[in-house]
């Protein structure tokens, strides 16, 4: 749902690969929606050698200056969760821009009745830190919650 909504909004076609949010399935029911959560120190922005990345003062989202991006991948390596995407057919890196304040993915998820995504005002760093982690770590926690003592075994990582 979210991938469809995001790619329709940003690209005008259904293009899951170019969605700024990716749904990763690690095991049945252990599903992680993977997207930018706007780190406090913005390591991606700092790492960019051409200053193509900057922060939107209104939303706090990371924005890309299309003309300056060289697809070098430095931002991907700097990101603790490896969120930014390089996609064939796009000449700049793809990072969630929060749709300017009203993310389409959140709307789509609510409409479908799942309510898994939520937009929140930027909290204190300590509250947000747990969200800044690689998808495997999130999957691990989720698997233990869903499968309890079998969590690690089911995940098999």
């Amino acid at each position, binding site marked *: *749902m979210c991938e*469809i909504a995001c*790619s*329709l909004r940003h*690209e*005008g*076609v*259904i*293009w*899951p*690969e*170019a969605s700024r949010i*990716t749904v*990763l*399935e*690690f*095991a*049945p*029911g252990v*599903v*992680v929606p*993977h997207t930018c959560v706007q780190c406090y120190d913005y390591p991606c922005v700092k790492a960019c050698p051409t200053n193509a990345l900057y922060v939107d003062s209104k939303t706090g989202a990371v924005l890309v200056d299309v003309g300056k991006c060289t697809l070098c991948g430095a931002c*991907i390596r700097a990101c603790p969760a*490896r969120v*930014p*995407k*390089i*996609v*064939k*057919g796009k000449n700049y890196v793809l990072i969630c821009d929060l749709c300017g304040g009203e993310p389409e993915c959140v709307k*789509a998820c609510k*409409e*479908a*009745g*799942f309510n898994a995504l939520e937009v929140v005002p930027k909290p204190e760093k300590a509250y947000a830190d747990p969200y800044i982690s690689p*998808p*495997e770590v999130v*999957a691990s926690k989720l698997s233990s919650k*869903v*499968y309890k003592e*079998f969590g690690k*075994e*089911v995940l*098999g*990582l």
Partner: protein
Amino acid sequence: MSGFWGKLLEIDLTSSSYKEVEVPSIIFRKFLGGRGLASWLLWRELGGRWESIDPLGPENILLILTGPLTGYYPGIKLIVSGKSPQTNGVVGSAVSSEVAVEVKAAGYDGVVIKGSSKDPVYLYIHDDRVEVRDASRLWGKTGIELLRMLREEVRVNYVLEGVKSLPPALYIGPAGENLVRTAPVNAKWTHGAGYGGYGAVMGSKKLKAVVIRGSGPLPKVANLEEFIKLRGELIKLIPTKNYWFKFWGTPSEYYFAGSRKSSEPIRNWQEEWHNIIEYSHHDLETKVWVRRFWSDWGCSLSCMKVSIVDINGKYYLTDGPDYEMGAYLGSNLGIFDVKEFTALSAIADNLGLCGIQTGNVMGLVFELYEKGILTKEDIGYELRWGDFKVASRLLEDIAYRRGIGEVLAEGTYRAALKIAEMKGLKPEEVLKYAVQVKGIGIGAHGIRSKADYPQPIAYTCSVHGGDHTSVAGLPINTIESESWKVFFDSAVVCWFNLFNIPEDIVIKFLNVVTGWNMSKDELYRELGPRILTLQRVLLLLGGPDVYWDPRIHDDNPPRFYEPLPSGPYKGKSGDREEVKKLKIQYFSELGWDELGIPTKDTLTKLGLTELEPAIERIRKRLGI
């Protein structure tokens, strides 16, 4: 072209080569994609010598196809097809898998796999890059083990190097490798394309898995604005008007089909009614479910649940279990404990066995044992209704073709014939316990009570035999007829996402995506009958080991003419006269003769005159 590419990827495993093949858009208009396109492709490639093609030989073609609505309509399904090792015709077998979107994003409407490999291989397709990779380390692995190994071999998303999520793959378990005719093509740990037995076809090609990654956009739609609006409405409409299904999924049928509709298989269909309150979605919810909503791609209905059972410290993970699997490995074997049939479902998933077809042949052998036709000597151990350990052992024996499993792996029809031969009995004496039509065990919805949806001719007239998702019925221009099922199997849309959506809206959606002007009339008078006629001809051509005679095989299994022994519909049974009358009416409305052979006029009207020589061959074989 909007909504599809008009292009297929054709791979030859014998020569390890591949090429792109164009398909004119007029073919998509006349046959859509999925099941319809599969029938057309198979007819064109193999029709001239259909009878001699061995489904488990190198000449068979494995098809993985999407349709014009794939990726656009909420929910997802993918069609797997080829010459079926079960019916010897064409079955369009559906499985829920994101591979459908990956195929389309890679730039194709489908993949055509010909020939066979000498050594085990798996396919890795990434946009226009095709690799035939060595699968010797993967061969023999069960579903879960295989997915984990593939995860290491395949970088799931090339921009997220090293993310260890599950790769989008179609695969087979040990059963498919051993050419078990009841083996499905699996996906996503617990899903499978079971009807048709195409897992055995993959096994015969030594093809362990197909991994597809597509990084491009889907084809554009004809009217983007209208599409976004209509899709948005459907996303909200489907679950709100079908809350029952969203909340309980197909497991809602365990108790409902048995207690209220009297149509559930119990002990090889000897009964269809039960009142066991613990055999229900409520017990599943409290004892085995760990997640209530587990979606397939793009689906807001999310009917599938996730279950886990702990038996002696070992875990068994599966979905719902889906009603069909659970009923066939549960009540059909006399097992009414939710934990037990959930575990059996997980075992079947992992071995790569179809719950329906395998459960069906297991029901047969259990009853033959009960009636004394087979003994402990024949099986090697005792078969007891309701015995979980025996059932799980038998599942393994079938997957690995051990002992009696060697015979049962051939599917209900062929196993019944083999057992008759083994025991020096006439075929009818064993076939009377086989609850199947044209090589396919009947789905867990009986016809005797008439309180469930299948009409008396549901399975007798279907081109898919016992397939409960493709039942035939009257009136011919409504969703009761098989034309509607052909439509959604060819547009490729998940049937559950259609349960309360009138056809008008779906057809409008199709036109918004493709830019066509299809009407309900065209669907029921031309599109449906066209594909059904093609499938019917291929079904009657049959061969090489088994052929169908419409005078004998267009019928319900003998069990369905026995009166129901219990429940509110006690005494009801199929009525031969009624079936004969309805059959003739149904055939005539489709434009076929009394034996269900398409007439010359019908062929002309549907643009299928090229089938005439094939029909001559059928008549010659039948001596008419």
